[in-house]
């Protein structure tokens, strides 16, 4: 369980460019949850993520991962980073080793695991992201395709077996097919490892389809916290923040607004199609 209580973070405190990135944010994420975070660019999402694994410390407030208060002074950072794995945007830009296997092993090695354990985890992580360890392990990460690089980078974090896996826009800049594959892979990892997964995305359809819990951040404040149905049901408020419901839901909402007798508003295309068929009376 992750419990965030009243965290506030101010950048460049006391300087002319001072800005409040997070303002009194509180929420709870239950074990096994797949949580989505949505918000504008610059809303404070990335700042929030970096707090969750101790890369940034809040100016006030506390964050509990399990029973540990990770905001406490002198907390064991390595232990926090073992528990909470963070995959940054465009993670393929962090690859640096000679081979894929060595790069994936970087995290586990830093945890001080035995060589045997490191090797086992490298193979496990590569399989989890859908790459054959035999085939890819010895290759240079720089000769892979964009999608494969992304997978290797995600494997580098997965290999630390985090209890919480955070992904910041893991599909940014990928083609539609790779986009789908990478999301499918993330879903697989979530199901196999039964961990908390946190996904930041600008794609509302992805969030609606994958998440059971959605947080909305706007201008450093947590403005919504609920199930996808609850959050995307407040489409007007989302529009005001420059966000929106998934296209399928948005489409039905507009049909309904113009007088078509739509009952419930599903979030996915298949559900929307069913609803329209029902209205058409077929």
């Amino acid at each position, binding site marked *: 369980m992750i419990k965030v209580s009243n965290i506030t973070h101010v950048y460049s405190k006391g300087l002319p460019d001072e800005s409040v990135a997070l303002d009194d944010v509180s929420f709870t994420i239950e074990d096994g949850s797949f949580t989505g975070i949505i918000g504008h660019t610059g809303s404070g999402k990335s700042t929030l993520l970096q707090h969750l694994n101790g890369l940034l410390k809040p100016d006030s407030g506390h964050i509990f991962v399990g029973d540990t208060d990770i905001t406490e002074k002198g907390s064991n950072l390595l232990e926090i980073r073992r528990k909470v794995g963070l995959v940054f945007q465009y993670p393929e830009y*962090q690859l*640096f080793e000679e081979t894929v296997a060595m790069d994936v092993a970087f995290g586990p090695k*830093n945890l001080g695991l035995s060589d045997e354990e490191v090797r086992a985890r490298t193979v496990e992580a590569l399989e989890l992201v859908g790459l054959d360890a035999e085939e890819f392990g010895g290759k240079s990460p720089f000769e892979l395709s964009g999608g494969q690089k992304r997978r290797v980078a995600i494997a580098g974090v997965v290999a630390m077996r985090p209890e919480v896996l955070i992904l910041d826009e893991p599909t940014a800049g990928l083609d539609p097919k790779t986009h789908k594959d990478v999301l499918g892979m993330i879903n697989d990892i979530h199901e196999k490892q039964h961990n908390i997964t946190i996904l930041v995305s600008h794609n509302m359809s992805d969030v609606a389809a994958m998440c059971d819990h959605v947080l909305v951040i706007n201008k450093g404040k947590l403005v919504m916290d609920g199930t996808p149905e609850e959050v995307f049901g407040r489409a007007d408020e989302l529009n005001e923040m420059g966000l929106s419901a998934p296209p399928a839901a948005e489409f039905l909402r507009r049909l309904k607004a113009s007088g078509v007798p739509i009952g419930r508003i599903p979030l996915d295309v298949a559900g929307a199609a069913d609803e329209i068929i029902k209205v058409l009376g077929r």
Partner: protein
Amino acid sequence: MIRDITLGQYYQGTSLIHRLDPRTKIIATILYIIVLFIAQNAFGLAISTLALIAVIALSKVPLGFILRGVKPIFIIIVFTFVLNLFMIPGEAIAVLGPLTITRESLRTASFLAGRLVLLIFGASLLTLTTKPIGLTDGIEKLISPLRRIGVPAHEIAMMMTIALRFIPTLLEETDKIMKAQQARGADFETGSLVKRAKNLIPILVPLFISSFRIAQDLAMAMEARCYRGGEGRTRMNSMQMTRLDLAGFAFQAAFAAIIIIFGR
């Protein structure tokens, strides 16, 4: 954190110093550095310090902001001071084991340290009050007479513009890569010197690759906008000397004269 480095940074403002022509400020900075080394007695250094304080006050840049930027360099100054303190022979005034401090060494070390501090403050004031573009435009104008003897003035200025432009980008990139590797349990703060140097590899390799990528993208974007060097190129903001600059030059002349007459 790495973002705290303010050396070479610009501090937004509209003070008298900010409004000076970049050329005036560049010349003033060079002159100030020369005068610092002409000054040989305590009076000379005191006047130099006063002049700098006056200019800092006029620039309205908070002292804390300047200090934050030059902090890393103080280690070098302290090092130079200590080295000089024990290296110059003369009349001994204190003995620490095998090391002797002499009257001459104390004087030389303090003067050198004082000069370095003033030099760094003066130079950082130039970048703090001048936008990078203004700075490179100024340099281009100042060295353009040398074009006749084959100095590629525009190209040099463009290289400097790009280099300056990429300092924040690369700092940001470094910050991002560092955080990403820290998230994978990398440790940059503890261990022996050799170990720490080794720990930099996970930062340096991605940073190198990023720089090449950024450079390539930039070259492409410049070509796409028909960049073809300095021939026949005009400026969006042409620089103009004003009365303010005249006042600036008068101040410099007075300052230099005082030092040359009394400060040696």
